[in-house]
């Protein structure tokens, strides 16, 4: 996804001279071409996230469209108050990129874990929060974020993630149906989409019933209309997220359902509200906490048996 981000950024900067990129000393050998072509529009502020956010605010006030970048844990947690007050409160058009969101950096310990990035950014009124699932969604969503006159956050992954395609287009604020299916619907955000697709492929290869899959790349504002529609037509919902239990996709979904009295049974697969110690491999972490493709398969099978 980072390659897609770099390429999208480069091409958007070509089209729009207002695009300026700031990094908090992150992105080794990623932005060379950008910096070379647009030297003034590439700024390494140093390991100074608060300054990065405030400088972006100043640039936005002068009519620029800043995109700021660090790894997700440092991009969101550290300068949280600056993002809230200097970007959110005045509603400035700055795109905050958190690279390696969720447990991308599972092997690097809790300091690099960003299970809370979506929750933190979602707490800010007026903030648009997206977690694309593959490079295609990154490429499609970045230009849409740059059109906003308000701040946004995009969680991206690392390199080499699997790509997928679907008939439905990638529209900011719109959930995207990746697979059709009856009675059981999986709702994902971010990199859980390809994991759920793997699970569905497994189910199909086993000759089993397979569920619908909706990718909520936009967590805030959540696609209420689509959510209500799919929740009403399903008999079991399974939310899969690589985020803390509070404040992520699951939290947003259950709030919507509860407010509307929609009682479709719902289950969450995802990491717990706990520190993940031991620097596990990401796939082992997902297995340990029951949100890998096999766990999804088990949950779907169980759901269909119950129905």
């Amino acid at each position, binding site marked *: 996804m980072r390659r897609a981000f770099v390429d999208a950024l480069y091409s958007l900067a070509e089209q729009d001279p207002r695009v*300026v990129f700031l990094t908090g000393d992150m992105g080794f050998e990623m932005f060379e071409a950008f910096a070379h072509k647009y030297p*003034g*529009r590439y*700024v390494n*502020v*140093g390991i*100074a996230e*608060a*300054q990065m*956010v*405030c*400088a*972006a*605010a*100043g*640039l*936005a*006030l*002068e*009519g*620029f469209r*800043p995109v700021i970048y660090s790894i997700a844990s440092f991009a969101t947690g550290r300068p949280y*108050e*600056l993002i809230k*007050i*200097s970007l959110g*409160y*005045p509603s400035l058009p700055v795109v905050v990129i958190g690279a390696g969101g969720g447990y991308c950096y599972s092997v690097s310990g809790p300091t690099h874990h960003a299970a809370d990035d979506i929750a933190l950014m979602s707490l800010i009124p007026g903030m648009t929060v997206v977690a694309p699932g593959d490079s295609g969604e990154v490429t499609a969503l970045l230009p849409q974020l740059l059109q906003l006159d308000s701040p946004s956050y995009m969680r991206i992954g690392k390199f080499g993630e699997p790509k997928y395609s679907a008939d439905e287009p990638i529209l900011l604020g719109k959930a995207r149906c990746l697979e059709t299916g009856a009675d059981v619907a999986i709702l994902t955000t971010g990199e859980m989409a390809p994991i759920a697709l793997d699970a569905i492929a497994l189910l199909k290869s086993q000759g089993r019933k397979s569920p619908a899959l909706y990718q909520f790349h936009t967590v805030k504002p959540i696609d209420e209309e689509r959510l209500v529609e799919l929740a009403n037509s399903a008999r079991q919902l399974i939310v899969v997220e690589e985020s803390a239990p509070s404040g992520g996709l699951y939290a947003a979904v259950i709030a919507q359902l509860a407010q509307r009295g929609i009682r479709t049974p719902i289950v969450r697969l995802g990491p717990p509200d706990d520190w993940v110690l031991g620097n596990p491999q990401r796939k082992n972490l997902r297995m340990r906490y029951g949100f890998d493709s096999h766990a999804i398969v088990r949950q779907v099978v169980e759901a269909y048996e119950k129905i």
Partner: protein
Amino acid sequence: MSMACTANPSLPVGKLEELAREIRGECLTLAHQSGEGHLSSSLCHIELLTALYFAFMNLSGPQEQRDRFILSKGHGCLSWYVTLAKHGDIPHDWLTSYAKEGSPLPNHPCKHSLPISITSAGSLGQGLGIATGILYGLQLKKQPEPRCVVLMGDGECNEGSVWESAMFAAAQQLDNLLAIVDYNGIQAVGKSDEISGHTDLAEKFRAFGWDAVTIDGNSMPQILAALSHVPFTKGKPSVIVAKTRTMVPFMDGKVLWHYRVPSAEELEIALKELQL
């Protein structure tokens, strides 16, 4: 009170001092009427604001080319509002609404309610960084003339983000950046020198690659002299460390007056001491 004036760089020192005195008197009256605190934070930097708005900043002509002013120490906004009214940027009759519900002049400036304010202040340590972004942007737009002046508190300089911004400003050679630190020695719950370990603000900024002067921040001649040399060194941002006091003797040096509002009697004494 006086009529609003427009910026006039050739105003004599005496006239500027007179304006400052009037602004101070109006602040005291408004503080009493509104019941809103943070008075001393507002009183100490009045000469600085007067000099900036009436003698230093370019505030006429196309908006884009004007100097920018950021009140980073947002809690000290009362005197800024009065200065804006005197300068003709806001209607004078807005002042009586200061800090009232729904006012365009809340106790911390809000860009939504007062669009001419560049920032929504109230959380310290952000104005300097925003200024660096503005100036960097102006560089990209090939507009080197406008300057950005940021008024900060000495307590505010406790915030780490101030030093992140200071580092960036020097590294980017933003020499059209002028920071002014209102060094009144008082913070919310203590004296700034004790909290900072009696270290020198000007030296700190110099260590970060700035050029700095320390002045008596209530002396109009010293303020004007310092401003006339900005930027102090080409290629370096400038800071004026301005030692200030409220200029109301019974309020000076007391942490109490950071929050307290003058009673009617205290207001009368203060206005008398200012010869108003």
